[in-house]
């Protein structure tokens, strides 16, 4: 048997080819197979790569998107139209700002978008229709949903399809009822001083149907109270009142843009 000798690499300039002779029997001719790896020195000066300094998780697909809602801020006041065309009839105008001075937002109601992505179907304060894409800013998604039951006097927050919060509420009186329907949270007010509203107030896109002359548009809010003794019950002018401890908890869980379904 003949063994070939591996030629050690000299300064990496040349590489020897090691010959391995396999000799199963004295009758069969030797088979030669060159081996590149055999020429690599045991102490390879080309060290192994260091362990990466970032730990990168396996890619994960998004979880089910059923619970996701999309909203967008208004970049400017915009006309809402009955169809995705500038010739369609105008249903109303969305102002760029809310009465609270925050950026007005609209909820995107569907996948619908025309081929050139010029028009988007939205729902906003009292208006449902199509708005120019250029009038909207960047999309945001939320996976929360608030359900307010005006007969059971409860507010329940769902996140990714699971209940994460529930509390008793006060709602509007018979004369000034909380409107029912699909709305959304459009701003958050804090650090004001008004005990009647508690520590935090959320503005919604819902409007009172009876208090049509109410200043600042007659919008319904979700907020704290200095009369927790009145909850649960029909006690307000349409707003949804929670105990202060509850509104604070809700504020940690509910982002702007959360759809609000009032039954």
């Amino acid at each position, binding site marked *: 048997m003949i063994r070939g000798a591996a030629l050690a690499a000299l300064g990496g300039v040349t590489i020897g080819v090691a010959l391995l002779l396999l000799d199963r029997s004295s009758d069969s001719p030797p088979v030669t197979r060159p081996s590149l790896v055999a020429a690599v020195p045991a102490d390879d000066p080309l060290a192994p790569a260091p362990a990466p300094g970032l*730990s990168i998780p396996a*890619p994960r697909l998004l979880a089910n998107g059923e619970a996701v809602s*999309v909203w967008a801020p208004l970049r400017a006041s915009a006309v809402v139209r009955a169809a995705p065309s500038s010739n369609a009839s105008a249903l109303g105008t969305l102002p760029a700002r809310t009465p609270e001075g925050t950026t007005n937002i609209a909820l995107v109601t569907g996948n619908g978008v025309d081929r050139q*992505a010029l028009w988007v179907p939205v729902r906003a304060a009292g208006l449902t229709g199509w708005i120019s894409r250029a009038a909207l*800013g960047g*999309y945001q998604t939320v996976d929360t949903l608030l359900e307010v039951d005006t007969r059971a006097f409860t507010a329940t927050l769902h996140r990714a399809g699971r209940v994460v919060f529930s509390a008793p509420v006060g709602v509007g009186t018979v004369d000034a009822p909380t409107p029912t329907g699909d709305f959304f949270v459009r701003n958050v007010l804090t650090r004001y001083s008004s005990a009647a509203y508690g520590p935090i107030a959320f503005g919604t896109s819902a409007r009172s149907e009876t208090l049509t002359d109410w200043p600042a548009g007659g919008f319904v809010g979700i907020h704290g109270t200095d009369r927790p003794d009145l909850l649960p019950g029909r006690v*307000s002018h349409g707003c949804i009142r929670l105990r202060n401890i509850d509104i604070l908890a809700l504020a940690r869980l509910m982002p702007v843009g959360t759809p609000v379904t009032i039954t």
Partner: protein
Amino acid sequence: MDTYFEQFDRDGALRETEAALPAETRRDLLLGALAGGTALALFASEPASAATKGDVAILNYALVLEYLQSSFYTEAERRKALRTATAKQTARVLGSVERAHVAALEQALGSAAVKRPFFDFRGTTENEDAFIRTGVAFEDLGAAAYKGQAHRIQSKALLQAAISIHSVEARHAAWIRYLAGTTPASSAFDEPKTMAQVNRLVASTGFIVRRPTTRSRRRPRFTG
């Protein structure tokens, strides 16, 4: 993909629509956009400082680009406006990888991580052609950005991580080009881009915008 980024500033369709807005509104938009710039911190040109600070800066730079990509694909998937199987698959597959990159960088940076910017992708997550073109540009850009920084990273461990992400970005760039019907590799060498070049390109898209103000300290005037 020549002159791709030019389209973003003045895409024909968007321009027509903006022309429909009243003149004062257009001016306000412009001024608003200019004013918004000062709210964001100026990104220093390559900081020459201790290894740790320099590497942190590079990681945060990478993180913003990964936020850009992951937010783009995630929004495309969530918005559900894209119709073709190709576009949907691209958003799903590439989105999952870019989100993993974001997670890795956020975890490493901890409290030093930059916050995710607010994006307006201006219709590119809703129109098939624009989506694919934007994806191509993002992946090409991501690979070029990593190439521009690799040799500046001082930690060998972080270099290793960056280099292993870089080649994935290049794979994505080729794959999405293949799906777009254009050549996956148009030349024998891919060139690096500097931070300044990348910043300029990203700025030119107009995708990073001011956060909308949805909080206020005003006294509520709801119905009560």
